């Protein structure tokens, strides 16, 4: 019995473990809830592009000693501007232009990382390390998550109206472009704070996988968001346990647990359809 209790409690007996738990739970709760809208507004490719494109910001922060969250925020602003330009590139095609911008940004990030002595290893920036999250970074994550969750609650009705009927929404007094912009800002904020713990390559898992896990089973947007958040937190905790006991990388373990949750959710039979 004691062995079981130790196995369950040992990962959280240190400040490092507790902060990792809080970071993964916070990012998971926001990503799991926001992911419902990311899927519904078909923003997965955009989210992936933003997340991957912020690498130079992360590396610059690591080089200059700035907080990585600040670097991620800077990187995401630069990436967002370049991606917006790529989206309007009709001669090349938006998808092709986006791919070029993203690979260019990753290349620039790699160049910076290898050109200078970067305190944080490039691997940590790419794949994240929740065990390295400091108290101030955790506080920043908590503040962003609280603000973003409040925004999701406030924006619930416009988000629903536009996602359900983008053609009819303007006549309801809802501006689809403004709603999409608000969603993109929330997405950017989530990626910026999530990249610290999960890395810019794996943060997408927190945004997409929980929503995929629950989307066939939820009856309302609110239940989809709540269930997505719960799944994300549970998968995050499972990933940290796996990381601790199997002595594997925490970021990768959390991302794999999230993807496993997505697979389980997709394979679980749907309840009898509602009338």
């Amino acid at each position, binding site marked *: 019995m004691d062995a079981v209790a130790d196995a369950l409690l040992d990962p959280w007996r240190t400040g490092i473990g507790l902060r990792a738990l809080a970071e993964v739970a916070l990012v998971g709760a926001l990503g799991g809830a926001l992911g419902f809208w990311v899927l*519904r507004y078909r923003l997965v490719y955009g989210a992936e592009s933003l997340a991957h494109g912020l690498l130079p910001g992360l590396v610059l922060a690591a080089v200059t000693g700035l907080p990585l969250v600040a670097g991620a925020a800077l990187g995401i602003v630069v990436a967002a501007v370049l991606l917006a330009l790529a989206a309007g590139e009709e001669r090349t095609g938006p998808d092709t232009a986006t791919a070029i911008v993203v690979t260019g940004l990753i290349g620039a990030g790699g160049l910076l990382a290898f050109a200078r002595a970067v305190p944080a290893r490039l691997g940590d920036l790419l794949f994240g390390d929740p065990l390295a999250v400091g108290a101030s970074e955790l506080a920043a994550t908590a503040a962003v998550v609280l603000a973003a969750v409040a925004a999701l609650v*406030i*924006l619930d*009705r*416009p988000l*629903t*109206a536009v*996602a*359900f*009927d*983008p*053609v*009819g929404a*303007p*006549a*309801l*007094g*809802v501006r689809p472009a403004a709603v999409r912009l608000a969603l993109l800002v929330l997405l950017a904020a989530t990626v910026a704070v999530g990249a610290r713990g999960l890395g810019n390559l794996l943060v997408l898992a927190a945004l997409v996988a929980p929503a995929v896990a629950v989307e066939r089973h*939820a*009856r*309302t*947007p609110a*239940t*989809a968001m709540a269930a997505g958040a719960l799944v994300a937190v549970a998968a995050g905790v499972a990933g940290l346990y796996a990381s601790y006991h199997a002595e594997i990388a925490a970021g990768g373990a959390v991302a794999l647990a999230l993807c496993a949750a997505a697979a389980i959710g997709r394979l679980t039979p749907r309840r009898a*359809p*509602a*009338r």
Partner: protein
Amino acid sequence: MSGTARTPEGAAGRAPVEARGLTVGYGGRAVLEDVTFAAGPAETVAILGPNGGGKTTLLRALLGELVPLAGSVHLARPVACVAQSDRTRLDFPVSALDVALMGALARGRWWRRPGRSDREAARAALERVGLGAEADARFGALSGGQRRRVLLARALVQDAQVLLLDEPFAGVDQASAQRIVALFAELRAEGRTLLVTTHDIEGARAFDRVLCLNRRQVCFGPPGECLGRAALEATYGSEIVVLEDEGGPTRAITVQHHDR
């Protein structure tokens, strides 16, 4: 629904819906040219035309989604828009009541949860379209006709002066079609203006006015004027089949070409 067409001028001196010399299109290329018409209070207008003729484009221009390349439009607010229901997301997890409740967004205060009065208005609207018992049913699980009626219930909750309806009879069962026609008559009697795009030429005879479009305005006027053979052939070309009687065209049907 048919009856004496009122003057298109509203009480304030301007018709609730008006287009003057309207030319509109996409990417600077005109797809609908030179449209001039007006619809007054308590007036119903059927908008006819082939696929690609500009019916939906006209509604989008009226709503302000498309900026006119030439001419002007005026649309009195509040306005309700019932888009073709196949443009809504059928897999979106909302109930019929949730959809009707979206109409309350038009009253502003989008950041607040719907209140009791909003819920009562939504339930009353669903009752009015004959779907009170389906309030908790998932929208995507309803039939095409029921979905159309739920979207009409959303428009009722909006309490709009003008209703724009894009092909409300397409793919609709007979019971739903009858219910929708009866509702149109009620809304007209309440003084509301209805613009309805449709492929149902015979059904258009019940409207106060008919607007025929084929990338330009072919005809605008009473059904007797715009549903004659010449106007219909100019509107539909080879898509029209006119079944003639001795007294002239009595019935006309459109032949849909889905490759357009």
